[in-house]
């Protein structure tokens, strides 16, 4: 059941990225490619989660991958699109679909963490906590400076 829930969350995020991909291609091939790769990766990951009991490596990969996407989302809504493309350093708007995709990815991270075992789980939780604190710090600096 929990694997199905995780799979559904990954699929939701992937489908949202697929939905917004075309107009990002219109802006720049690099942005469109990012959303295409994200959508495919999240779709494949959803399938892998249903293909048998995933090992720790696969779980950790999912946590890292979704954490990266979430961090990029926060960066683009606070400091701006980093470095690349015609909209570099433009702050993207917050939209319902963006929040929905991020919420799905965060929920997926929580579910994947719950499937981790032993010392690895403790270390991952602590790392995510530190990351959250760093994000708050950098995010507030971006907004107010």
């Amino acid at each position, binding site marked *: 059941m929990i694997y199905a829930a995780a799979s559904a969350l990954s699929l939701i995020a992937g489908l949202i990225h697929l939905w917004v991909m075309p107009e990002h291609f219109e802006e720049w091939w690099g942005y469109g490619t990012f959303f295409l790769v994200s959508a495919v990766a999240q779709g494949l990951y959803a399938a892998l989660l249903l293909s048998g009991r995933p090992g720790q490596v696969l779980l950790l990969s999912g946590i890292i991958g979704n954490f990266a996407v979430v961090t990029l989302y926060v960066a683009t809504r606070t400091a701006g699109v980093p470095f690349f493309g015609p909209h570099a350093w*433009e702050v993207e708007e917050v939209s319902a679909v963006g929040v929905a995709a991020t919420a799905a990815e965060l929920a997926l991270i929580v579910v994947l963490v719950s499937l981790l075992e032993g010392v690895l789980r403790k270390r991952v939780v602590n790392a995510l906590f530190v990351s959250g604190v760093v994000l708050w710090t950098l995010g507030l600096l971006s907004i107010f400076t």
Partner: protein
Amino acid sequence: MERYRREITRSEVLKLSALGSAALLLPFGQAVRAAQESSPNFSPYQSDLPLLPVLEPTSSTTTYDSYEIVQRKGTAEIIPGYSTPIWGYNGLYPGPTIKVRKGREARVRHVNQLRDPVTVHTHGIYENGDNDGHPNDLVQPKRAKTYFFRNYQNARTLWYHDHAEHVTAQHLYKGLAGFYLVGDEFEDSLPLPRGEYDVPLIIQDRIFNGDRTLNYPPHGVVVSDNGFLGDVIVVNGKAQPRFAVATRKYRFRILNGSNARPYTLALSNGQPFTLIGTEGGLLETPISLTSLPIWPAERYEVVIDFSDHSLNSQVILKNTRGGNTSGGSGTTAEIMRFDVVRSETDDSSVPNPLRPESEQADPTHQLTKVEVDAARNAATTKRWEFGRKRSRTGGPLYVINGKTYDKYRIDAFPREGDTEIWEFANPFAQFQWSHPVHLHLTNFKILDRNGGPPPSRETGWKETLILGPGEVVRVLIKWPEVPLGAQPEGKFARKYVFHCHNLEHEDHDMMAQFKVVP
């Protein structure tokens, strides 16, 4: 070794909440900050109106003058007593005025010492696209570009400003704008006010933070469909200045340099003033007005006569525009004040006719009245609808014929020498959005507005017009020959754009590209 647990513990929930809350709440921080604030109070009419400095050439030959402008950070005392960081041409806000003569070439070298790529559009100039400041013809930081202007056009009031794709609004707001004035012998022969009595005015609006730095939404965030509207009116870089005048006539070259705010100009004592010119230069005949709407990027030249005023009297230039959103009220209802401080004799006058039809012709004014009438129903028509759509992420995209700007797409291929009617339409009457539409390269004649004749102020040659909610405006364009030959032909030589000059709309892609073909 810890035992395996499937459930998330309370401690883990708290730790993971740091990431979750950051991801879900921080993005809203920019939106909160972007909500337009109010400027601190200040007393108006405490600053004298600056007469903008004229840029001197760095060198001259028998055929051209060379100029150099360094785009760099600077500071400006916009509100008295406070130093506001700006970006400026030569570090000045507004930039220095470039004064040129018809038929004499000017070469202006721009050096970019700013953080961002820039491009310089001389608004209203007739030149090939490599010198037009195309939004994608960028000058990178630490690089330079020389713009060649052959100045083929009759005397008129142009201006130059940044035009880099997606950042024009920010760059212009920070200070990257200045006047480019073309003079010619015909205009010199007229008895119009000249010298210190010929005054360019750039009217803009700003919002200031508590520390008097400029307030503008974070780049990319669209605050309002009406564009950016400030609550402090700035003229020639000073907040609500005063201008000491004599009891005589003055010529004012008025430019609406705001990002999005329109104004309706009127004098507080209700006296009429005389409209003598538009973007295309002097009108054929002067027009007496008591109020004058002016939208972003439009220029109107007016003569105001203070000869009937007593010494120590004051006249306020007001903004009487109504409306809840962009209307003038409170701090935006008054623009500047004229203080009549001395008596002078006045040998100037406004002749009638001003610049008759026989003197109007130049590469951007190629049609006589007879030709305009003949082409009115015969010329090829292209229709351009200005609208808005929602992106898949829910944000606004401002579009022309349903499309956002794409630097790889050409939307029209007008042919040199052809006469065309371009029909600009704004079908979204219910949303009350207006679009000041600007065409690069050449001028047009407004044939009709909503099926009827245009108001008198729009009867001259123009390159910017207002397209109000639900309006349809038809213009007649005779496409000139693209003036090549100043330098080797570059990739933008025949490429130009037209766009909404509400800069927040422009930057969110309300722009289209055309290529003039032989």
